[in-house]
């Protein structure tokens, strides 16, 4: 038997919309089989993964809080991936963003505030986080533009470096002197925290920041020259070269956008949910966001939806771990499988697929 692919004259809109849903359904089916193989009821697992988090106000907030950094990072990554640039170091840019912004919070801890009061601290933190993420993402971008070094490998190596730097700083120079030797910084002052949206609840303004960035990205991608260039370079690199688009400048810009978004997500997480610096500030958001970006078909609105779906499964996984003793790694495997299936299902939008019996594979 032989798998035959015939290019479609144009991408199928229907299949483009259907293929992520199809991939998701298939991943859920395989996940269900895995759960059954582990001797648990798939029905009970589905209820806990996909329904339970939606039934209570606190868990709905948790879903939104998990979705916000994912949507933010993935939206930035979409600019790179659309232009065929492979920034896979968003995790490191997230960490550096959180670290840079967090340093301001630690440095201003307990100050009374001068003529400006303390109202400048939080905006300065957000700006510092964004800029630091940008700068960190520009390292692989510059190496690629100037020397032709693969951005894939350098951006990823820098993740390990960023994590080790954070680890060193919170165990050393940034450690809370009154913290009983725990490896963590001081708890941030109120002026250095993203306020809760509702008094006494967890939901904080980071969710609004993510929403704003997603909307901004919609406009930039569809209505600006920069967005147009990103799309052309990705879809038709030769055409872009003939049109005189500078590949170098686009590479730098796309990396700056994705690094800035990841850095902003990092400081929003630190100033929002965590409220201090710790040896680890991310449960792998930068990597999960890669899945979100592709599941959302590299479009900001799709990414926003995909981030909610992935956040749902993550919160569901925590519930399933407690209720059914299902390991958290099951969810990571599920997410990897989902990404593989999404990429595979994409073939339906680009080609007519036929199974030809007999004949040998060419």
């Amino acid at each position, binding site marked *: 038997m032989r*798998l035959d692919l015939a290019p479609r004259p144009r991408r199928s809109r229907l299949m483009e919309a259907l293929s992520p849903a199809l991939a998701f359904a298939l991943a859920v089916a395989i996940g269900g089989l895995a759960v059954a193989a582990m001797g648990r009821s798939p029905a009970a697992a589905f209820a806990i993964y996909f329904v339970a988090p939606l039934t209570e106000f606190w868990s709905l907030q948790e879903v939104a809080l998990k979705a916000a950094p994912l949507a933010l990072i993935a939206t930035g990554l979409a600019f790179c991936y659309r232009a065929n640039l492979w920034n896979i170091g968003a995790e490191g840019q997230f960490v550096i963003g959180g670290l840079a912004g967090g340093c301001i919070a630690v440095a201003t801890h307990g100050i009374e505030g001068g003529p400006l009061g303390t109202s400048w601290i939080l905006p300065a933190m957000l700006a510092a986080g964004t800029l630091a993420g940008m700068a960190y993402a520009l390292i692989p971008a510059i190496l690629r533009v100037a020397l032709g070094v693969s951005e894939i490998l350098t951006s990823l190596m820098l993740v390990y470096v960023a994590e080790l730097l954070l680890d060193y700083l919170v165990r050393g120079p940034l450690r809370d002197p009154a913290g009983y030797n725990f490896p963590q910084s001081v708890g941030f002052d109120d002026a250095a925290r993203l306020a809760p949206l509702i008094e006494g609840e967890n939901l904080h303004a980071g969710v609004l920041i993510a929403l704003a960035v997603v909307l901004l990205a919609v406009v930039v991608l569809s209505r600006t020259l920069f967005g147009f260039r990103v799309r052309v370079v990705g879809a038709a690199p030769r055409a872009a070269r003939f049109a005189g688009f500078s590949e170098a400048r686009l590479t730098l810009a796309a990396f700056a956008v994705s690094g800035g978004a990841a850095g902003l997500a990092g400081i929003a997480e630190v100033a929002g949910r965590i409220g201090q610096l710790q040896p680890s500030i991310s449960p792998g958001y930068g990597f999960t966001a890669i899945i979100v970006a592709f599941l959302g078909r590299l479009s900001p609105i799709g990414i926003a939806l995909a981030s909610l779906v992935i956040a749902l499964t993550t919160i569901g996984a925590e519930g399933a771990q407690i209720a059914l003793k299902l390991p958290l*790694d099951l969810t990571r495997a599920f997410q990897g499988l989902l990404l593989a299936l999404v990429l595979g299902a994409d073939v339906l939008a680009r080609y007519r697929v036929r199974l030809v019996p007999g004949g040998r594979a060419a």
Partner: protein
Amino acid sequence: MSLDLVQMVLFTIVTASTPLLLAATGELVAERAGVLNLGVEGMMVLGAALGFAAAVESGSTLVGALAGIAAGIALAGLFALLTIGLAANQVASGLALTILGLGLSGLVGAPYIGLKREAAPHLHLPLLSDLPGIGRLVFGQDAFVYAAALLVAGVWVFLWRTRAGLALRAIGDDHAATHGLGLPVRRVRLLAVLFGGGCAGLGGAYLSLAYTPFWAPAMTAGRGWIALALVVFASWRLGRLVAGALLFGGATVLQLHAQAAGIGLPGQALSALPYLATILALVILSLGRRAGGSTAPASLGRVFIPPR
């Protein structure tokens, strides 16, 4: 420094290089055929988990090593289905493989955390292994090291001394032309990818069966990525690959010795050394290559769809 100490240091460098060499050799074959598989880290880590689990259950290191190879091949098969069968993007599919491999390895390995095994036995040839200077280095390694050496030699002969190897390299350089000549592009790529997966799985199994005889989550710690960088660093040539693997094994060992000796630098800075060294190596390499242009296989990373 005494002769025995030098031998000891060189010995550990060879040990630290072996998993990199195994994984990178497999990836070199896949890339020579034109397929960029970024899933090495995932295949390695699953090989480590499954290899350890199988070895504990069966009580046999050999069974563990075979299980590790099988794990790598299985993941590589999924990658081949996506990228060769369904024309999916190679970069993204490789990332999916790594995420999947990390998740699966956590699942497979969970019951085995904290268990210990005897490390794979080292060869001992009565007179030869006791030779001063080179005895242990040459005649006292574990079976994996010799397997890796044989593998590299075999791949070298295959790629540069056989017709099939020539065909594989040609396919990596121009898939359209070789298809026109009637070479089975997709089948060769499938086999090359599966071979790469088996090597990565074996490299992972080496970590959990010989290097550190236990399983810990994510114990590959980026070695799969460093193996990928090594292939670039080696300009897709085997001789340089061996040299590069020894260099990186050396960096790892140096870092461990420096940590143990407590030289003023923080431990985290030393731990970052292999990653920074990777970046530095890539930079230096591209500086040296600027005049000559890229040496990568010309079809590397490009999807091939047979015209009808």
